[in-house]
């Protein structure tokens, strides 16, 4: 009956958003008088997986078969289905990502479970089970009741405040989870993977520095990269910038790109079209730097500087370096 949390691994480490999912699942478990079990698929050391205990999980099921080494949402959803069935889990938590949504969807279809993606807060449980989710690309929220027996929740970044100071030192028990293999999940041949492994992922990042057309061209990105590096931030861009090939498509933040929810979003030379705002409105704090005082982005910002980005960025970088 435990709450089951699907976590994602990155080079053997539990992703930050997955640690949030564990804390979220543990909180739901304590609300419902149950325990939190983690499912981790892929290679990882026990010492890393035990950390799930710091965030409130009592047990980790580790599925590390060789055929699960390459990320495969079809196979992972089957393993999640098997784990949920074995544990008798009625509540399943995943963090929102391409993999999280795909695994949630396919597992929900087999578990005949209601699935809600984009959950922004802890559920309200009082007879009914209700969650709040982000809709209309962050322009509104919906309180949604999940009526099915089995419930699948895909949570957004910052759906729970993880108090790093308050995490306990207790380690979770790690068990090997032996799953059966469904051949139909292995029809595809992956022929190429391009992954910039050194880059900080946008959906995981706490700080993002992002550039728009005001950056004037691909050759002028260095001051922005310098600030990002001084802050330990990921870099993003607006749609026109990726359309113009100044930056790679996977950096495109907005309605038709990646939706981000960092603690700090610094927009450089981005005017703030509604489609861009839709991708960043989950951010805790927004800084806008633009030479046009009428740029609509200032209306959505917490801090603003009107001026030339190429004069302002080096000053910020210098101040950020002094901070460290």
């Amino acid at each position, binding site marked *: 009956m435990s709450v089951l949390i699907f976590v994602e691994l990155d080079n053997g480490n539990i992703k930050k958003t997955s640690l949030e999912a564990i804390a979220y699942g543990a909180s739901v478990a304590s609300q419902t008088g149950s325990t939190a079990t983690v499912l981790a698929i892929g290679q990882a050391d026990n010492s890393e997986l035990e950390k799930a205990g710091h965030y409130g999980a009592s047990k980790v099921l580790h599925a590390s078969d060789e055929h699960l080494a390459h990320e495969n949402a079809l196979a992972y959803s089957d393993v999640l289905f098997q784990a949920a069935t074995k544990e008798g889990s009625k509540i399943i938590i995943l963090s929102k*990502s391409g993999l999280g949504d795909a695994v949630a*969807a396919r597992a929900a279809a087999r578990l005949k479970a209601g*699935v809600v993606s984009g959950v922004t807060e802890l559920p309200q449980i009082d007879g009914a089970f209700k969650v709040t989710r982000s809709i209309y690309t962050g322009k509104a929220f919906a309180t949604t009741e999940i009526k099915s027996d089995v419930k699948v929740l895909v949570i957004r970044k910052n759906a729970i405040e993880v108090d790093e100071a308050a995490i306990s030192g207790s380690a979770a028990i790690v068990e090997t989870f032996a799953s059966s293999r469904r051949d139909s999940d292995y*029809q595809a041949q992956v022929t*190429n993977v391009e992954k910039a492994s050194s880059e900080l992922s946008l959906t995981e990042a706490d700080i993002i520095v992002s550039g728009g057309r005001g950056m004037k061209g691909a050759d002028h990105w260095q001051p922005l990269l310098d600030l990002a590096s001084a802050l330990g931030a990921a870099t993003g861009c607006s749609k026109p910038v990726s359309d113009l090939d100044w930056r790679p498509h996977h950096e495109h933040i907005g309605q038709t790109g990646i939706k981000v929810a960092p603690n700090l979003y610094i927009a450089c030379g981005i005017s703030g079209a509604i489609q861009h705002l839709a991708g960043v409105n989950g951010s805790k704090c927004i800084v806008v730097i633009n030479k046009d005082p009428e740029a609509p982005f200032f209306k959505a910002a917490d801090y603003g500087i009107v001026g030339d980005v190429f004069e302002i960025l080096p000053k910020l970088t210098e101040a950020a370096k002094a901070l460290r």
Partner: protein
Amino acid sequence: MKILVCITNVPDTTAKISFTDNDTKLNKNGVQYIIGPYDDYALARGVEIKEQTGGTLTVLHVGEADADPQIRKALAIGADDAIRVNADPQDSYFTAAQIAHIARQNSYDLILMGRESIDFNSGVVHGLVGEMLGVPSYSPVMKLELNGTTATIAREIDGGKETLTVTLPLVLGCQEPIAEWKIPNMRGIMTARTKPLQVVEPVGLDEMTAPEKFTLPAPKGACKMIPAEDAASLIRLLQTEAKVL
């Protein structure tokens, strides 16, 4: 080649969102409806594939009659016929079950849709449909090439891109740059009027999830402006005031 393209009928990306009936319904007053932008990419690629390989392209919408202008637009862009499942879908599982039901009757080679709808932003319907039909699903797909019954797909993964080959049938959630959006021409608009649009009733199933109340985000406080010559002080404010550094 039998292709099914599923479309959503959603408020335009620039629409101002508000609610009525004690915050239980979207205020549709003055809201322009469009084919979901991601679905539009799926439709455009579907039409291109149909034109290259021959076959048929059916467009499917789960929704009410007010979507008919958008369905006619999809027919004008190049779909051969359309099916509308007459329901007001509020739940991903419900919508997916309707699509899967239609798909089982017609055995499509390729089922395309957007990576997510821009109203509920779930991005789970393609995965649900894939599992319900027992076929692979991939999303978000940025490139799709067919060679007989083998598909080559490029899709976005966290911080990168993956290319794979897989045999049809498939369910795909699409996004740019899979194709350029198509604008219907006059001939398309004329022929769309007489193309078949079949309206069917939904299959019944237990309600899984139901939205009960909508809320708008709390209004943003005023933006604190910092003089350009004093830009460096921003970093201090972010640390001591906003506490995000």
